[in-house]
């Protein structure tokens, strides 16, 4: 048999160009310009999102400089709304509360979700894992609002939990309209998503890494902290970020489970819009929230990918 010179088994197209150069074989690209054909597919969503996503956000910026006279908004360029809102202690209290609640929810959800994600990823058979994932997806298709209402049935003074506690001679404990109830609402919102995101990042860990760690006399718990968590860091941080974003912007739990006290920024927005057409001030709050989320997201992504090449 004749030896095959450099018989590489790489796909010819993909391997025929060095990294960085456009890989001619892999991409079906034929022309460099986007043609009429390409535009037909690329433009509709772009136009839609510019018109109905980008422009509304830009308009929100403009709106924050408008003024309200006699319960009517007028186009203007006045920093009065920014000055008013930023000058109020209520605003800064709500800001601090929201930040603290969202951060707590993010940490709590991540901590509570991790053992579940870990167990699903490493302790279940393949078919059981598929079922577990399917079941975790179901909550996304039930109304969050209905689920929050349902928690009221559990948590109210005459609710399921207090009735059960009463049978053993405890309680009743007031649980509704507390921070605990708000947290349960946040968990309802983000727990399934965080479990799924953690699960996917754990699923990508090379199993042999874990066996190698055991082989090197790294104990079970130590392996989790020294091997599993660092390997899955990107996914774990991104999951925590999503929990933060969802909790930070949520207004259903703080109102219907937390009883509106303490006031969060989302409650403040709805209150501000309802009272005297103060939409420009609501815009100030909304923009502050977006700014905060951007900073947090940027920092989280930076941390998630720290020390990684891409």
């Amino acid at each position, binding site marked *: 048999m004749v030896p095959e010179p450099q018989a590489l088994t790489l796909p010819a197209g993909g391997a025929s160009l060095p990294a960085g150069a456009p890989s001619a074989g892999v991409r079906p690209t034929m022309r460099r310009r986007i043609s009429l054909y390409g535009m037909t597919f690329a433009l509709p969503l772009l136009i839609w999102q510019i018109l*109905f*996503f980008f422009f*509304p956000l830009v*308009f929100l910026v403009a709106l924050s400089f408008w003024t309200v006279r006699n319960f009517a908004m007028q186009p203007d360029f006045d920093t009065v709304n920014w000055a008013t809102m930023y000058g109020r202690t209520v605003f800064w209290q709500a800001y601090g509360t929201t930040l603290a609640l969202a951060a707590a929810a993010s940490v709590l959800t991540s901590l*509570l979700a991790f053992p579940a994600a870990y167990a699903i990823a490493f302790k279940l058979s393949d078919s059981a894992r598929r079922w577990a994932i399917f079941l975790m997806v179901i909550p996304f*298709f039930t109304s969050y*609002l209905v689920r929050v209402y349902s928690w009221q049935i559990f948590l109210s003074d005459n609710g399921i939990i207090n009735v059960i506690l009463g049978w053993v001679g405890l309680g009743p404990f007031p649980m509704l309209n507390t921070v605990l109830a708000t947290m349960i609402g946040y968990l309802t919102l983000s727990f399934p998503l965080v479990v799924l995101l953690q699960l996917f990042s754990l699923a990508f860990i090379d199993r042999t890494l874990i066996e190698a760690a055991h082989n090197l006399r790294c104990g079970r718990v130590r392996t989790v902290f020294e091997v599993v968590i660092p390997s899955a860091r990107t996914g774990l941080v991104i999951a925590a970020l999503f929990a933060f974003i969802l909790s930070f912007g949520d207004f259903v739990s703080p109102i219907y489970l937390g009883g509106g006290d303490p006031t969060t920024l989302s409650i403040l927005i709805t209150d501000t819009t309802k009272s005297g057409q103060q939409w420009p001030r609501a815009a100030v709050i909304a923009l502050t929230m977006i700014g905060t989320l951007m900073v947090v997201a940027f920092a989280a992504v930076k941390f998630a990918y720290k020390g990684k090449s891409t």
Partner: protein
Amino acid sequence: MSGAADLNRNRAVDWALMVYILLAYAFVFAPIAASFVFSFNSDRFPSLPLGEFSLEWYRAVANDPLVWQGARNTLLVGVAVGVISTVLGFGAAYTDYRYRFAGKQVYLALALLPPTIPVVILGLAMLAYLSRINLSGNALSVIISHVVVCAPFAMAIIRLRLSQMDPALEPAAWNLGASEWAAMRHVIIPFCAPAILGALFITMAVSFDEFAVAWFVSGLNETLPVKVLGFLQGQVSPRINAIGTFVFILSMKLVILAQLLLSGRSARVPEKE
């Protein structure tokens, strides 16, 4: 699991983790199950012990003309949102799959970011903007805002399918005499068909549940979730459980249908040698 892993297992820890998984699912499903159970319960203020079995709340919902109007709007909006989102999402997914161009990062950011913006903010911005351009207060405005949030999901689902396609398939069709349009019709769309239908159903289901944006944007023409919010704001009534159960069953039908399509035989990637 290999033998080595079994050797390293600790039964007590495994049991504890299994119990933990069950608790996690109990937490996730408790509100869903309770909503279902209490929708058939006669008590005005639901709690334990259970009252009598009753269809009272379903009757109350069925007799409320506003609910029917809301349900009709929900369906109408859902179908429109599903179709538009899927068409737009398909175009963007194909663009991302096929082309490289300057500013692609920006394009993808615009296409995918909306779901990460809190609904309160999105609702506020849209209501302000849409009322400014005289589009607020009708079903159209709800459709517009739902598509903004749903199209990225459709795009993600279809993009995933495209990434499973042999990249030589489309050029092979061109090479056999198919123009770009013909290849789109005879190759890309047939290949993506399961994902396209899956995206259609998923975005419809998302639209059914999406309420907060609608609450801000919609005026008189309320969709069902808006109606639910109305109940909550005013007098709390177990009717919400009846509506919730109804919407849940509808949504789950769509999701299971999508699931079957996305994992079914027709969607399977041909095995490699």
